[in-house]
């Protein structure tokens, strides 16, 4: 009987062979990988099954006309907002008389923008902005059907949206334009929206003229709803507005929406039509 059994002999040789062959295999694999085809999906990996991610519409080039079409759609969104308020009881009693002139102002602004769009070589977009309609206007109007305080919500909605319009125009007017002269009519529309916000504020809440923010304090709140001030800030703002509305859920929380100035996801690109 030999000291080296076939099993032990095969095992000793097998270990060496395995090590050698493994190194060869790894080396060959590395060479093949380095020289191989690198094409393939560039999508980031995803785990699980989910709906495809939303995509932006075909953007094309963002021009002066793109921004003007977006602002035209913003005005039509405001017109839709006032129409929605009208079918849900209108503005609060203190401000009922402002509905007609404010609605007319938005119609006039939309016509002004239609002219600017045409002058800039853009296609007319005389309808509400789809992004703003789905996320801002429609939800707050629909919530008026089931709110715990219609007057409060109508006041907060009208004031917040006029302020949002002012902020939107202010932000857009300050951007770099191919034709800088466009800033004049756009800041004019910002100023008019800001005037309406100030007028609404003073009419709705005549006892809260100046925000404590201007003297280093904190703005007031009533059950979590922001107090409306006629003069709320030192400078015109472009930050988002948190609009609270509706009725509280089981946890006592109200619905909120963040009204933001137009950005890439709300632009009315050339590929979008009414």
């Amino acid at each position, binding site marked *: 009987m030999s000291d080296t059994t076939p099993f032990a002999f095969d095992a000793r040789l097998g270990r060496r062979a395995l090590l050698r062959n493994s190194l060869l295999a790894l080396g060959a694999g590395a060479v093949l990988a380095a020289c191989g085809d690198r094409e393939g999906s560039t999508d980031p990996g995803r785990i699980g099954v989910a709906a495809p991610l939303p995509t932006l519409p075909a953007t094309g080039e963002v021009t002066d006309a793109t921004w003007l079409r977006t602002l035209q759609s913003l005005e039509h969104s405001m017109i839709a907002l006032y129409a929605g308020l009208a079918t849900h009881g209108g503005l609060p009693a203190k401000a009922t008389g402002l509905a007609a002139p404010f609605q007319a*102002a938005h119609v006039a602004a939309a016509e002004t923008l239609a002219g600017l769009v045409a002058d800039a070589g853009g296609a007319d977009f005389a309808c509400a902005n789809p992004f703003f309609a789905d996320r801002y206007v429609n939800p707050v109007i629909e919530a008026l059907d089931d709110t715990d305080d219609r007057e409060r919500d109508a006041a907060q909605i009208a004031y917040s949206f006029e302020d949002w319009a002012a902020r939107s125009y202010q932000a857009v007017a300050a951007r770099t334009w191919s034709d*800088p002269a466009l800033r*004049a009519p756009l800041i004019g529309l910002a*100023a008019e929206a*800001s005037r309406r916000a100030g*007028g609404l504020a003073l009419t709705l809440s005549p006892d809260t003229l100046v925000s404590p923010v*201007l003297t280093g304090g904190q703005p007031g709140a009533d059950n979590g709803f922001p107090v409306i001030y006629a*003069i709320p800030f030192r*400078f015109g703002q472009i930050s988002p507005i948190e609009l609270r509305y509706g009725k509280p859920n089981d946890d006592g929380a109200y619905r909120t929406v963040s009204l933001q100035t137009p950005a890439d996801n709300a632009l009315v690109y050339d590929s979008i039509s009414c």
Partner: protein
Amino acid sequence: MTTPAQAVTPDSDAQSAAEAVALELAARDLYDTAIEAGADAPIWATLREQHESYAQRLAGIVGVSANTPDADLLAGLSESFAVTNPGEAAVELENSLVAGHTGRLAAIAGGTSTGDALASAFASIVTAEARQATVVALLSGVTDAAALYVNPSSEAGA
């Protein structure tokens, strides 16, 4: 040692901003005149502070001193402000500033850091001053919507 390149601000932008600083300082002084004459409603002190802040913001952007008010504006409106309720004169002042700054904003070419900062500053000042004009007009008893919500001093409507 090298220093970072500085954005070049066109002389016209700097000159325009310097003029606006002087006008804002004059507005501040006009509200001071009203306060000294007995206008003790908090709104007047608030507006005084607003205009001083606007002057400081613009002066800081272009690097000029905020210490010389516009003499012509002061001379033209001092008498109207030397009362206990300068509402009517204040509306005229705010609307006039809005119209002037609108023109200044439209004249900024942009594309430089200073030009862009000036554009943002003028835009934020115009929206604030327009709102102030309407608030003061309402407090002064104006009820006509056309007078409240459109600027009679501006062709652009600002």
